[in-house]
C-alpha cells in the first residue's frame, strides 16, 4: 500500500518537474492589477488587453487588487520566479517594486504603466496621451453647452488629471470663449455613490455637460436622468446612458500588449519608453452621439485626425495660467517634459488646485 503510494508520489513529482520545464519553454505573460477586473474602468481595460494576448495564443496569468507597496513587490517577484518571461505592472505605484525585482531577474522583461523609472535594461515604461481625447471632449463641450458651464469630476491633483482639465478647457475656449469649467475633487478613483453626488451637485449649479476623471459609470447615469450631456471615461460608457453620453475616451492597451508579448517571443524586445495616443490607437474614441449633429461630428472627426497626425497639438501657445503668466509662447507647443509635470491650471478654470 505504502509502496504504491510512493510510486505514485515519485512519478507525479517527475511529471510536475517535466511540466514546469515544458512551461518554461513557452512564453508566459504576467499582469499585476491595482483594482478588481470588475471595476469597468482602469483595470477592466488592462484586463481586456490581457484577453487579447491570450487570444493571440500566448499564456497569461493575472493577479488583481494588488495594493501598491510591499505586497506589490512580493507579487511581482512571485510572477518572475514562476516562469513568466514578461510582466506588465499596471499602476503608477508599482514603479519602485518593478525596478527592484527587475534587478534580480535580468532574463525577465518588465513593462511598467505610467511610470518614468527604467533603472535596468529589462524595464520598459508605457503610458497613453489621454489628454488628446480631452481636447476632443472640450471641442464638443464648447459647442454643445447652453449654460456655458462644464462640470468636471476630478479624482486626485496629479499631473495626469490636471493635464486633462487644462487640455479640455483650452479646446472648449477655442470654440466658445465664455466657457467656465467647474471642478469638484472627490479624492477617490472609484466610489459610485460619491461620483453620482458630485455630478448632481454640478448639474444643480448649472452645468449642462458632465465630465469625469474617475472610473465608475455613476456620473453618466445621473446626467442621463437629469437630461444633460456627459462623456465616458476609460471604457465605453454609452450603453449606461445612451442619450446623454456624447462619446467616451477609451484606453486600448490590447495592441501594445500583443505587440510586446510577440516581441519577447521573437527575441526582438528592447527597452523603450512609450507614450502613445490617438495616432497609435492607444487612446481611442467611442461612437459619436448623433445628437451632436452631422456637422459637428465631421468637425470632431477631422480634429481627431489632425491630433493623430500631429498637425494640431492639444497645448499650442499662447497658453496662460490663472495669474496670466505665460506657460507656452505664441506658436510653440508644450513639450512632453512640461506635460508630464503639469501642476497649474490654465486661465479660465475656476478655483485652486488642492495642495
Amino acid at each position: 500500500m505504502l509502496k504504491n503510494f510512493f510510486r505514485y508520489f515519485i512519478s507525479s513529482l517527475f511529471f510536475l518537474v517535466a511540466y514546469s520545464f515544458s512551461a518554461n519553454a513557452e512564453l508566459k505573460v504576467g499582469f499585476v492589477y491595482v483594482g478588481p477586473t470588475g471595476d469597468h474602468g482602469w483595470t477592466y481595460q488592462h484586463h481586456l488587453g490581457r484577453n487579447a494576448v491570450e487570444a493571440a495564443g500566448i499564456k497569461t496569468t493575472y493577479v488583481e487588487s494588488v495594493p501598491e507597496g510591499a505586497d506589490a513587490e512580493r507579487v511581482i517577484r512571485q510572477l518572475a520566479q514562476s516562469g513568466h518571461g514578461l510582466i506588465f505592472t499596471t499602476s503608477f505605484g508599482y514603479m519602485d517594486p518593478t525596478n527592484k525585482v527587475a534587478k534580480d531577474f535580468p532574463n525577465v522583461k518588465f513593462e511598467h504603466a505610467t511610470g518614468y523609472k527604467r533603472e535596468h535594461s529589462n524595464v520598459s515604461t508605457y503610458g497613453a496621451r489621454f489628454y488628446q481625447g480631452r481636447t476632443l471632449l472640450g471641442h464638443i463641450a464648447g459647442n454643445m453647452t447652453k449654460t456655458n458651464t462644464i462640470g468636471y469630476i476630478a479624482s486626485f491633483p496629479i499631473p495626469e488629471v490636471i493635464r486633462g482639465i487644462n487640455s479640455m478647457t483650452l479646446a472648449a475656449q477655442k470654440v466658445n470663449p465664455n466657457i467656465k469649467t467647474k471642478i469638484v475633487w472627490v479624492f477617490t478613483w472609484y466610489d459610485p455613490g460619491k461620483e453620482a453626488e458630485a455630478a448632481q451637485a454640478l448639474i444643480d449649479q448649472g452645468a449642462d455637460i458632465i465630465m469625469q476623471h474617475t472610473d465608475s459609470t455613476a456620473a453618466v447615469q445621473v446626467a442621463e436622468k437629469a437630461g444633460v450631456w456627459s462623456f465616458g471615461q476609460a471604457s465605453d460608457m454609452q450603453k449606461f446612458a445612451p442619450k446623454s453620453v456624447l462619446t467616451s475616451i477609451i484606453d486600448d492597451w490590447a495592441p501594445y500588449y500583443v505587440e510586446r508579448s510577440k516581441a519577447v517571443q521573437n527575441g526582438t524586445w528592447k527597452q523603450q519608453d512609450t507614450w502613445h495616443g490617438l495616432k497609435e490607437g492607444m487612446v481611442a474614441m467611442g461612437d459619436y452621439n448623433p445628437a451632436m449633429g452631422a456637422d459637428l461630428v465631421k468637425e470632431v472627426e477631422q480634429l481627431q485626425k489632425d491630433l493623430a497626425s500631429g498637425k494640431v497639438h492639444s497645448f499650442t501657445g499662447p497658453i496662460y495660467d490663472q495669474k496670466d503668466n505665460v506657460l507656452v509662447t505664441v506658436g510653440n507647443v508644450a513639450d512632453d517634459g512640461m506635460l508630464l509635470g503639469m501642476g497649474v491650471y490654465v486661465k479660465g478654470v475656476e478655483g485652486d488646485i488642492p495642495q
Partner: protein
Amino acid sequence: MSLDINFIGVLIASIMASSVPLILAASGELITERSGVLNLGVEGMMIIGAISGFALMIVTDNLFIAIIGSMLAGIIISSIFGFLTQSLLTNHVATGLALTIFGIGMSAMLGKNFVGIPGKEFPVLFDDLSETIPFFGPILFGHSIVFYFAFILPFLTNYFLKRTKLGLMVRAVGDSPDSASNQGINVILVRYLCILYGGAMCGLAGAYLSLIYTPQWIENMTSGRGWIALALVVFSTWNPIKILIGAMIFGGITIIQLHMQALGLRIPVQFLSALPYIMTIIVLVVISRDSRKIKLSTPSSLGKTFYKEK
C-alpha cells in the same frame, strides 16, 4: 448658485436620497444591537444584498423579486453569523469582521458576469407632482418606494421597541439576557431573529445602491457605507429617531461640500472632504458629555456571548 426656494428643495431631496442606505442599514443593525448582538458585518451584508438584487433584476427582469431577493440574501448571510455566534458561541467582533471580508469577496465572485451591464430604471411615485409643487414637490414626491420606506422605518422601529411586547423582549434580552432567560424568554431565538432582521435591512440597503441610487453592479460599490451605518447606531445612542437625524447630517455635509466646491469657494478641499467625519466626532463628543445617559442607553450585554445555564 441661485438660492431660490426650489434649489433648496432639490438640495434637500438629494441629501435625503443619499442617506437612505444609511438609515436602512443602521435601523436594522440597531435592532440587532438592542438584542445584545454586535454584528460588524454590515458592510458585507450590504454588498451581498447589492449584488443579489442586481443579479436577480437582470435574470428575472422583475424589480419586486429583486428587492425581496436582496433581503433574503441578507438573511441568508446573516444566518451564518447567527449560527456561529449563537450556536457555536464564537466571538461577535471577530465573526462580524470575517463576515464583512467574506461578503466583499463573495459578492465580487458572484458579480463577475454582471459587470458592465446597465441597470433598469426603478419606478418612482408621484413624479408629476414633484415638478409642479415648489420646494415641497422635489422633497416629498418623485421617489422610489424604498425611499419612503426608509423614512418611515425609524418611526416603526421606535414604536416596535417601545410599544410592543416583542420589542420589550428584544430590549430585555439585550439588557439582561440572564433575567430574560429566567423569565422564560428564549434568548437565543430572539437574538437569531434580530440578527436575521438586521441582515434583511442591510440587504435592502445594498439593493437600494445597486438598483435605485446608482443602478449598476461594480465591485465594492458600497465603499464604506456599512461602517458609517455602524457608527450611526452608536451616534444615535441606540435611538431609532436619532438615526434619521444622524444620517441626514452625514449625507447633508457630504452633498453640501460638493456644492461648495462647485461654487469655487476657496476652502481647502481636503478639509471639506473630512468635514462629515469631523462633524461626526463633534456630535459624538457633544452627546457623550453625559456619560451616564450613554451608559443607560447602551444595551448592557452588547457583544457578549450568552451561555445558557444548564
